[in-house]
């Protein structure tokens, strides 16, 4: 205390470490000890540590703390200390800065810290990076900074005019640092950089690419490196790498790859491919040699080395399809796809091998096979793996899903892969003379690939063989040409197929074996082409097997997989005009549909909520779920089988009776749609229509003639915000019902006997309940129909107050009866759409009462003794009585009846 009095700059230490006073004290410490010596080192380290703490505290609690930091230019103190290069102080300094940047919440404070190149001078300061501790804090400081990068803050780091970007430059220097954590961080930082949407920065990157090839190489490496990083981490997870997705550190880079590559890799790619210079080759070479071939393709083939690094097939398929969705670089895609579709395992010359803690790229140790042998080995191992993915007998459908996704992305790929796919007999849109073109292109491609990628040389004729082998789907090709081609290669083809038979090992998928064993399908074109149709039919068999599996009781297919399968099949059908395939598939669909119908049919009459389920699922069915931009990690996780996973039903397996039935319904709808598409029949029955043609439903705002209709006058009191009004409003309305609708009208002042519609709801979706306290009151909840855009939710929750209890009772009767009839009509329409025999309504009510116990909550019956008293007296009471009565009533009674669906799940 006295020392403080003595001198203004005294080092009196306040007790509260979280106060402005304490910061003042620390600032004093810093100014007193500008020169770092052995003696004051400890004090300074402690001061720096405490400053970070106070500033963070101040950021959240007391703005004057940061003001002081600003006024005293304390950041400059930091820089001065940094320049003195004391190791332990610099460690602490980096740590303090790291804490500051990571935790400061006020953007104005953060921006100040980033301003005026202070940060850049820290970044480019020559720290002693060979000191492990310094390095660790330095790199994590850079990483923290990189997470603050966005379109606004990039200008703090990247100076367009002076072409300075210290963060990038320094990070690139550490690209090949000998410590893996540093390398990982570097990649992370680079990703954070390229993720920023700033054109001039990307131009900077690409521009420097021209001048300095290594940067581009880095980006290619980066891609590979990242995947390598992912891969090494994937190893930690036993089955699906996605398990680790829950772990933030790992999931981030994975999603970064996706987002980065979606947005940012493409410009780099395009730039380089436009330039038609070496870089593109280097780039594609790097990606291919480091990522695609050794990692992805290796993962899709049998393990050859115990130490090799492989992804699970699910992740490999996932990355593969992501790659196809993202990258458009012609050459890379073509090379990659052609190896995927045609090559054998021998095409893999390198793979990642684990050496204790590290992984490195090594050549595959194998007896070098002569090109001749190579030629005679048509085993398309990668393609087989893809087909195997569709084996529905597996425990779950993730593989199938990602297999489908892969096929889907092949179609979606923008790198003009049409010919390649046709050559592999993936049916795609073809030119007028597809065969010749495809062959030519393929040949050209092969030559290109052999030269640029130093692949093993292949004779053009051999490609011809390969291409024609799978020629079945080229139906628009004149028979003559086809025959000629086939003649040329018949011998080879024969040989090949025999070899495949020999090779058909137990590990092969059952489609393969089935395809091998099966004689050409009856009705198939029993010509020379049938023999070469093997691969092709395998693909179709595989796709069909998913449809098939859906029909079986114990399938493990999720609705979204079926949806994707249907999508892929439709894509194929758009271009293929194959009678046989279509009829077969249609037949299969119809079989499956009947199977499903049998299951569903059992419950149609018995389940009160079937109507709701069907409508909900129909709405769900109309939504397109296949959008790979929004399909997140959840599909990479092992399929969940419980609603506890918080996934929507279509992305998981069903649990319990209701969900199973719902799933069956959605399966049915998909299959039905596919079948209709195949046979070309329009679906006239779905969506279910209950209004006859020419009889439009009444809509709000209509003016309707109510002459001679049953009208019930009532006061509507909305309990929730709705189209009628806000809670507490009292609206005079007339209640009318037609066959299907509940209508509230207001008399039209201009036309007697006419009224304007104020509200319309479907009777089938209405719930009514009496009020235990007031017999003149009905509680009405009307739900809206589910649609593609919104789920079922109530559109009107209101209290209807009638003039007396007789009218109330009449209304109740009319509404419940109307509801019953409306539901009957709707169900009838569904029955006829499904083709299920309808049980006689009278029988039905006795067998399973149509009155839904959950829906109609019986209140105290109007006319009961207690009520009679209150109602009879109420007529004479002043108006004020009503409102109090009503208020108390609404407090006592449940306004919204129990949600039937909820009670179902509970039971």
């Amino acid at each position, binding site marked *: 205390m006295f020392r403080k*009095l003595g001198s203004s700059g005294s080092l009196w230490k306040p007790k*509260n470490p979280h106060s402005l*006073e304490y910061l003042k004290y620390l600032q004093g410490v810093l100014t007193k000890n500008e020169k770092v010596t052995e003696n004051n080192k400890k004090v300074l380290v402690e001061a720096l540590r405490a400053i970070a703490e106070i500033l963070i505290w101040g950021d959240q609690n007391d703005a004057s703390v940061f*003001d002081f930091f*600003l006024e005293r230019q304390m950041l400059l103190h930091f820089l001065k200390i940094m320049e003195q290069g004391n190791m332990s102080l610099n460690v602490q300094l980096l740590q303090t800065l790291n804490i500051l940047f990571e935790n400061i919440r006020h953007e104005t404070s953060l921006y*100040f810290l*980033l*301003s005026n190149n202070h940060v850049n001078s820290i970044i480019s300061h020559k720290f002693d990076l060979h000191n492990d501790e310094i390095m660790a804090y330095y790199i994590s400081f850079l990483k923290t900074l990189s997470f603050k990068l966005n379109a*606004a803050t990039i200008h703090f780091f990247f100076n*367009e005019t002076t072409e300075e970007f210290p963060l990038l430059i320094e990070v690139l220097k550490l690209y090949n640092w000998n410590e893996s954590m540093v390398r990982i961080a570097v990649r992370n930082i680079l990703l954070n950089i390229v993720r920023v949407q700033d054109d001039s920065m990307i131009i900077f990157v690409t521009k420097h690419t021209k001048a300095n090839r290594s940067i581009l190489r880095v980006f290619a490496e980066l891609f590979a490196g990242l995947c390598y990083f992912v891969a090494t981490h994937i190893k930690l997870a036993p089955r699906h790498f996605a398990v680790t997705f829950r772990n933030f550190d790992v999931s981030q880079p994975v999603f970064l790859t996706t987002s980065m590559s979606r947005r940012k890799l493409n410009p780099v790619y395009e730039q380089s491919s436009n330039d038609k210079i070496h870089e593109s080759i280097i780039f594609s070479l790097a990606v291919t040699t480091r990522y695609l071939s050794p990692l992805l393709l290796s993962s899709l083939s049998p393990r050859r080395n115990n130490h090799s690094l492989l992804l699970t097939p699910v992740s490999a398929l996932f990355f593969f399809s992501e790659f196809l969705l993202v990258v458009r670089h012609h050459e890379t895609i073509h090379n990659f796809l052609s190896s995927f579709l045609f090559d054998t395992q021998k095409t893999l010359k390198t793979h990642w091998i684990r050496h204790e803690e590290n992984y490195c790229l090594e050549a595959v140790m194998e007896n070098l096979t002569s090109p001749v042998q190579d030629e005679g080995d048509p085993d398309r191992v990668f393609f087989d793996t893809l087909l195997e993915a569709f084996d529905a007998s597996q425990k779950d459908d993730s593989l199938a899903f990602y297999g489908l996704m892969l096929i889907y992305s092949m179609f979606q790929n923008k790198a003009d892969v049409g010919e390649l796919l046709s050559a592999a007999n993936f049916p795609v849109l073809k030119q007028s003379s597809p065969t010749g073109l495809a062959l030519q292109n393929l040949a050209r491609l092969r030559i290109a690939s052999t030269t640029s990628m130093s692949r093993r040389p292949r004779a053009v004729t051999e490609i011809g063989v390969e291409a024609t082998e799978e020629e079945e789907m080229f139906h628009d090709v004149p028979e003559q040409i086809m025959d000629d081609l086939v003649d040329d290669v018949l011998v080879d083809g024969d040989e090949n197929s025999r070899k495949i038979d020999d090779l058909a090992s137990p590990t092969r998928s059952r489609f393969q074996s089935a395809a091998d064993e099966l004689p050409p399908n009856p009705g198939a074109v029993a010509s020379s082409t049938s023999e070469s149709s093997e691969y092709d039919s395998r693909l179709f068999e595989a796709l069909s097997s998913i449809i098939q599996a859906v029909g079986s009781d114990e399938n493990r297919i999720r609705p979204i997989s079926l949806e994707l399968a249907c999508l892929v099949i439709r894509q194929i059908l758009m271009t293929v005009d194959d009678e046989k395939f279509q009829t077969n598939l249609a037949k299969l669909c119809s079989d499956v549909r009947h199977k499903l119908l049998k299951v569903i049919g059992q419950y149609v009459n018995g389940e009160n909520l079937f109507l709701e389920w069907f409508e909900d699922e129909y709405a769900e069915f109309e939504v397109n779920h296949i959008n790979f931009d929004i399909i997140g990690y959840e599909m990479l996780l092992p399929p969940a089988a419980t609603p506890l996973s918080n996934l929507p039903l279509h992305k998981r397996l069903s649990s319990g009776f209701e969900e199973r039935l719902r799933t069956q319904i959605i399966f049915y709808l998909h299959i039905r749609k596919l079948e209709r598409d195949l046979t070309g029949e329009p679906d006239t029955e779905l969506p279910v229509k209950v209004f006859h043609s020419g009889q439009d439903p009444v809509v709000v705002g209509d003016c309707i003639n109510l002459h001679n209709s049953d009208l019930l006058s009532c006061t509507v009191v909305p309990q929730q915000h709705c189209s009628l009004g806000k809670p507490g409003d009292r609206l005079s309305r007339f209640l009318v019902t037609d066959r299907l609708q509940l209508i509230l009208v207001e008399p039209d002042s201009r036309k007697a006997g006419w009224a304007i519609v104020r509200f319309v709801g479907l009777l089938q979706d209405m719930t009514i309940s009496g009020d235990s306290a007031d017999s003149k009151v009905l509680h009405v909840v009307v739900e809206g129909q589910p649609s593609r855009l919104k789920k079922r939710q109530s559109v009107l929750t209101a209290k209807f107050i009638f003039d007396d209890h007789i009218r109330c009772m009449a209304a109740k009767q009319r509404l419940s009866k109307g509801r019953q009839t409306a539901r009957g009509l709707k169900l009838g329409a569904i029955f006829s759409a499904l083709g299920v025999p309808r049980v006689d309504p009278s029988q039905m009510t006795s067998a399973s009462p149509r009155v839904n116990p959950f829906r109609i909550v019986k209140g105290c019956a109007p006319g009961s003794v207690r009520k009679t008293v209150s109602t009879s007296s109420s007529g004479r009471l002043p108006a004020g009585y009503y409102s109090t009565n009503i208020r108390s009533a609404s407090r006592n009674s449940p306004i919204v009846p129990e949600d039937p669906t909820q009670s179902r799940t509970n039971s």
Partner: protein
Amino acid sequence: MESNFIGEDYGPLFHYQYRLIVIGDSTVGKSSLLRYFTEGRMAEISDPTVGVDFYARMIELRPGYRVKLQLWDTAGQEKFRSITKSYYRNSVGVLAIYDITNRQSFEHVENWVKEAAQNLGGPSPSKCVFQLVGTKCDMDAQRQVNYEEGEYFAKYHKMKFIETSSRTGDNVNEAFHMIAQEIQNRVDVGELQPVDGWEGLKTGIMRSQSVCLSERSFPQGGASGACSC
């Protein structure tokens, strides 16, 4: 005599604290003006401001009545617009700067003022003070904007106007005095008042109280209260 000295003890040596923001096109001399004001001499040629910078200085509005000015210097470059935007909210006064030798910078003032007006915060953003400042008035030969034009513009937008030179120091202090006085006037009539959560305007007294409170928790802290004014 004014002093740029902010009490070593950081004690309650001022009555109010005003936070101002200085805006205007790139290279009009915002940083030079602020540096002249805070350092009392002409600054060497400086690099363009990256992001924001911060200055503070105490001034005496009338004998014994001091206010502290906290000054946010902002980058004029377009690319920092989104950054600088976030500094308006906690400002009570805006100095819109243009270069009298650069016609365009004057023409852009309107946009700057508009942007500031849209982003100001506090309890009564419309009462925040704007002031127009023309810089480099020592370079009369290259003048592209007449004094009258500036004056007219300021009058039209109901703000004060002054021309300064950060080379000779002409009107530099006056410029800041002018805006501080105007803020003070509005504070005096109650149009502006300090509120919690708004950094534009703060009382020095309040701070001294808060300091006193924290010090009172220490048995030996009584002495510091004595030096408050």
